[in-house]
Every structure is written in C-alpha cells, then in structure tokens.
C-alpha cells in the first residue's frame, strides 16, 4: 500500500527546477503531483511520477542527486474537515508526520494527501483500522 516518491536535491538558483522538468519532459514522464521544500541555500523537490524507475534513472544519468522514499497516499472526500479527520487519527495514535502535500483528483470528488512517516507500515495499519482509504502506489502512478 506504499507509494514510491522521488526526491531531488536542487540548489537555489534560477533554472534549477526547469532543468528537472525538461529532463522529465524529454523522457515523456508524467508528474502526478509534486512539492518543493526550500531553505536559503537549497531545495528538495519531491514528486510522484507515472514511472518511478525510468524517472530516477534519467535524472541520475543527468547528474542529479536523486533518492527514492516511501510515502503513504490517503484519499479523503474533498470537503471541510477531510484532512483533519486523518490527522486526528494519527495524533491519537502518536504518529508523527515528517511532511505532507496534497492534490485533488481529476473527478474533483476526492483529495489525495501524501504523507511521509518515519514508520509507514504502522501508519498504514492505523489508518486502515480507522476506516481511511490508503491508495496503493500502482493506482496513484496511473491516475
């Protein structure tokens, strides 16, 4: 039920992000969702793509520092309190969120929240036990 995410190290400089999107465009890789964490000096670009292996290979070949991390995708109805319901469950079970980002599905009915946990297996177990929908990677890549 886990999702593989690509993280890319970027210096804070003009053209840094564009370089990544160009490589992915040329390799015909589609980005499902992304988020950028930034500091004064550098940023970490995190993405879910349709083909993790191909994307990781092509980015590495172009000399970028890439790592693959495991994240968890949770589907919630796109309405007030949707995210809160998940966080309530997590906090009630003492699970810490390292970071998260979100997007709304094409249908517009549901939102998908991407979570990074220290221990994704425990988190998935807790989420499912509480009736939340955890999306498998394959479904996300193919959205």
């Amino acid at each position, binding site marked *: 039920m886990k999702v593989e995410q690509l993280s890319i190290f970027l*210096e804070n400089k003009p053209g840094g992000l564009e370089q990544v999107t160009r490589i992915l465009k040329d390799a015909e890789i589609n980005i499902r969702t992304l988020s950028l964490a930034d500091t004064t*000096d*550098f940023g*970490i670009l995190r993405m879910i793509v349709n083909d993790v292996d191909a994307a990781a290979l092509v980015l590495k070949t172009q000399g970028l*520092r890439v790592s693959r991390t495991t994240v968890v995708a949770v589907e919630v109805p796109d309405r007030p309190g949707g995210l809160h319901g998940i966080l309530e469950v997590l906090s009630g079970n003492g699970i810490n969120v390292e970071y998260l980002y979100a997007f709304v599905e094409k249908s517009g009915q549901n939102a998908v929240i991407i979570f990074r946990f220290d221990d994704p297996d425990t988190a998935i177990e807790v989420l499912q036990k509480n009736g939340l929908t955890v999306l498998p990677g394959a479904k996300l890549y193919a959205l």
Partner: protein
Amino acid sequence: MIYNEDFETLPREVLEALQLKRLRQVVQRVYHTVGFYRRAFDEAGVQPDDIKTLDDLRRFPFTAKQDLRANYPFGLFAVPMSSIVRLHASSGTTGRSTVVGYTKRDIDTWTELMARCLVAAGLTKNDIFLNAYGYGLFTGGLGIHYGAEKIGASVIPMSGGNTKRQLMILQDFGPTAICCTPSYALNLAEEGKAMGIDMKTLKLRVGIFGAEPWSEKMRLEIEDALGITALNLYGLSEIMGPGVSMECQEGRHGMHVFEDHFLVEAINPDTGEVLPPGEEGELVFTTLTKEAFPLIRFRSRDISRLLPEPCRCGRTLYRMDRVTGRSDDMLIIRGVNIFPSQVEAVIMEIEGLEPHYQLIVDRAGNLDTLEVQVEVSEQLFSNADEVKVLQNMERRITKNIKDYLGVSARVKLVEPKSLQRFEGKASRVLDKRQI
C-alpha cells in the same frame, strides 16, 4: 626610538660576524639533538663544519611546513620537554597542525623582540595598549602582550572579536595604541562610526597591524578612519610568532628583520636558488638563537623582497617589503591561516561526504568571509530527503571547521558536479578579495 641600540644598529660586518657565530652554533646543535636534521644534512652531504661563511648555508637543505607536520607534535624539538615552558599551535586536525615550543630563554628573546617592535612604533611606558590579537594557542596575543609589559605600557589583554566591547574600551579606557589585524581595524572604525562614535577624537595615536596581507591603500584608509599612524608587524609562529620584523615609524617602509636572531634569505620558490637583495622571492628564515625549536632554512612561503638600503631610523637591520602573496595555497581568513587541505580533512572526517568542495573567499565590508561549498554525496542524500537532515549536516560541517580551524565559515551544500573536478589544489579556492 630604538629599544636595543647595541644590537639594532650594529655595523653590518659586525652583525654578520655575530650571525656566522650563531649560525655555526645552531647548525651544530640541531645536527646533534634533532634526528630529522641529522638525517637531512647527511642526505644532502653537508656537515655542520661546512659553515665557514654565511653563504655556505645555501648548501644546506630547506625545512618545509610538511616536515613540521610529519614530526607532529614535538619531533623537531631540540630540548627535553622539561626545558619547555610554553607551547603554541596552529589550527588543524591531527597531523595538519604545527606545534611550536619555547624555553624560558626563548620567551625572554621573544619578549625583547616584541619590545623592540613596540618601541620602533614609538610606544613607551606612558602608553595604554589595547591588544586585540587573539590570545590562546595563536602566538599573536601572548607574544605581543609580553613585549608590551616589558616596555612598561599598560596592557589591555582584550583578545579578538567582541567588537562592541572593544569600542566601549576604546572610549572609556582611552588606549593610545592598538594591535590587531588591519581588516579588523577597519571593521572597528566602521562599526564605531555606525554607533555614532567619532573615531578620530579617541586617544589612539598608533596602530600595529599584521597577521594578514594588506596594502598601502589600506594603510591610508586606516590612518584616515582612526586618525592614527599605522605600522606593519610581521611574524610567523614557526620562527617565533609576531616580532620577526617590524616597520619603524621613521621609515614607514618595510619591516626591519631582527637579523641578530633570524637569518633571512629570499629564494626563487621554484628552483630554491638564493636571490640577490632587492629581488622578489620567497622568504626563508633560519633561527639563530632559538633553543627549543630551532629551524634551519624554513620556507615561509611568504613572497616579499629584502631591502638592504640604510634606513633613516638608524637601524642597520635589513628591511623586508610588505608580503605580497604566498607561494603555496594557504589562505589567511581574518588573521587565521587555513590550508584547503585542512578543510578537506574536516570534510572527510564526516562519514558519507566526498572530497568535492570549493572555498570561496571574499570580503564583506572589511571582514573576510569564507564560504565552503560541499557537494551533496549520494550516500548523504539517499538517507535523507528531509530538509532538517541536510541542514544538520551543514551545521555539523560549520561547527567542525570552527572547532578545528578556528574560523567561521558559511557552509553550503551544492548539487553534484556543480564544482569542477580540479587537478591542482590551488583551484579549489576562489579568492575574490581586493586588498
């Protein structure tokens, strides 16, 4: 003014006779007490008795900084530890640092030489002296301190940094003389001005500056900003510390080398050939009187030239011109000597980092800045896609550089291959300073 008229104004032939006598003694002594020198002389096929004239020294091998490191920490000492009363050391990780020792008599000599420097700058017992050189393992603070007490000045052992406090003391204690790096003097002037202090109305009248390269332009800037006479002091810890040579207020051009204690040569750094006086080259020093840590033909790597012309102050001691550069890749950052290889050693101590780095040196306002760019290694990033992990790494490198090398750096992680892969060490450094 001259502190030791007898020795500072000797006729050249008398001075040279004294140098020869002392040279013969020190060469004999190191041959018999320091294994390194016995081996080096034997290998070069020279014997202490070969020294018949001063020029015979040219046949003797050089001592390099590398030899000091290879004999870290005490391998080149010529006396037992029981005779040593003081140790100083350069910054660096184990094996990258150099350690110097002094006997009681060495400290006395150093004290006298610093007294000569301060008197050459016109100081007397009536001066209040703010010593803003760093105290501690660095030779600057304590070396100058002893000399200033020797002439009876009132010494404020301020040490470096803490600019606001320095400015308070400059106003409240009314020092008439100050000693620090020239860039720090400009920094004090600027900060003082920003705080609304009229720096020219302070009681300061003379400043003694050294430990980093500076220019005539900086001299005029400092003199103008602080309303003082600015003079140049030179030294290197391996040879003694500050007090190897000093500019006199009468001449204000070149620093008199205390040749009764140090023999100085200028060489072509590539061939090792000795150059005639007046020609620019690397200065090489031989200590003539030092007991604990004598050095024969130590390559300072400082580029300068010897000025044999007589000086109006009456000293017969040759002068050396301003140091204009280095014949190695050493950097001087806010008065602290750093080799790129030392930064590399700090980086390589941290697991997961690779030796891909670049040093960018600049001057912001009047203070040197050091940026260390380190490439994010695969190992580091594969374990960490979190900002905090990378930021912790930046902080850790910053702290280790500060702890080992004594200098504050701005550490910046950069993308792989964004730094050129260099062959030579020197190109690891981008020095943007205009001094």
